């Protein structure tokens, strides 16, 4: 039970979360996203074994971002009808404005909650394999992505090496974070040149081992859709429906 979200088929999870997000985009009241956010957290509490400390850390930027949405929506709102509920510095905030602002900031949180659920409970390799098996992603692309994914640690190392090489030759590391970000462009070219060579070599290796990229029906690692997926999907839909139902009254 505790593993139900982890065991869910990645493609099914992906589709259901996308449906939830697209549906949320049509609601402009504060309650729908708030209920969905709460529901998603509850789901994770019951059916997953994620690291909550890490979860909280990832949530912080979104709290800041949702605050940004909150105040810009109030200041730049188009619809200023409704009763005044709050006055700051002789600036009147109406009911509609406040509702829209709360709705948008809760929406950011609900989206973040859904995304973190996906990111924390999905194994990347299984996700690509499932995309290929359930959603008919071309094997040529699927295996190429997996190659790219395998190269990640190598590239990370390379990134550090190039940085060190630059410093050896006297390139100074800037104190300013924005300047440092801008200086990343100097590392980009050597990184990309390396990527081109890696791509060429792995493509030859794959072809040498008989990879043609044809569609296939049999796989070494099979990712299945089962009863667990139906149950979990139903739970997601239930949360979404509960959130939507509150607007009907």
């Amino acid at each position, binding site marked *: 039970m505790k593993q139900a979200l982890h065991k869910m088929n990645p493609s099914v999870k*992906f589709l259901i*979360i*996308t449906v939830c*997000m697209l549906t949320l*985009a049509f609601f*402009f009241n504060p309650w729908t996203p708030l209920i969905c956010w709460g529901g998603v957290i509850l789901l994770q509490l019951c059916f997953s074994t994620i690291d909550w400390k890490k979860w909280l850390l*990832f949530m912080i*930027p*979104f709290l*800041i*971002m949702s605050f*940004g*949405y909150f*105040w*810009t*929506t109030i200041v*730049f*709102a*188009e*619809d200023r009808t409704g009763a005044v509920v709050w006055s700051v510095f002789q600036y009147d905030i109406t009911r509609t404005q406040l509702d*829209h602002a709360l*709705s*948008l900031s809760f*929406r950011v949180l609900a*989206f*973040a909650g859904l*995304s*973190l659920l*996906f*990111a*924390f409970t999905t194994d990347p390799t299984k*996700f*690509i394999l499932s995309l290929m098996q359930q959603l008919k992603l*071309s094997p*040529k*692309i699927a295996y*190429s*992505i997996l*190659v*790219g*994914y395998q190269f*990640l640690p190598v*590239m990370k190392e390379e990134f550090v090496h190039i940085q060190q090489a630059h410093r050896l030759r006297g390139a100074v590391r800037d104190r300013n974070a924005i300047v440092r*970000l801008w200086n*990343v462009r100097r590392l*980009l*070219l050597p990184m*990309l*040149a390396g*990527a*081109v*060579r*890696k*791509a*060429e070599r792995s*493509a*030859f290796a*794959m072809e040498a081992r008989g*990879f043609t*990229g044809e569609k296939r029906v049999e796989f070494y690692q099979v990712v299945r859709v089962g009863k667990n997926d139906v149950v979990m999907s139903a739970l997601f839909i239930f949360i979404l429906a509960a959130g939507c139902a509150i607007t009907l009254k």
Partner: protein
Amino acid sequence: MLAKWKLKEVVLMALFSVVFGIVYLLFLHVGNIWAGFIGPIAYEWIFGIWFIVSIICMYIIRKPGAAVISETIAAAIEVLLGNAVGPRLILSGLIQGLGAEAAFAATGYKRFTLPVLMLAGVGSSIFSFAYGYLLGGFSVFHPGYVMLMLGIRIASGALIAGVGGKFVVDGLLATGSLRGYPIARAVKGDARA
């Protein structure tokens, strides 16, 4: 669509998408925090960065689909790395890629001059803005504010993605590592690989 592709072109596209997936993620975090202080308009200045891989791949590989597939893979990599915008990002990647692809398709995949690359950046801007308008709930904002956001995004798409993308690939072409890809064949006087 992929039948005419060489495997090394597909792998190259995937690898570039991985590299830019990381770059995108970096900017996503920067943008997120920035957006907290100045609102959703914070993204608009740097939005072009997120379109760059589609333009780079199309400029090198020059086959239908290079823009939309690469952008989608880059988004998928961001999701795989555990970013916090989530699976929805794949959809935005697909839409941004379609915007760039539309510009290249309009020229029949024959011309890859700077204006065309910039047009692709603009295409991505417009497509992604329409999507963001719906999903971000921009309709609650004042129309003037929305137009300002769109204007900045178009400029950013044309300059960062269009001009920046060309700059990166031309630099890469000069290193000679792109021999054997369609871009090298298109350059006059280059050795046939």
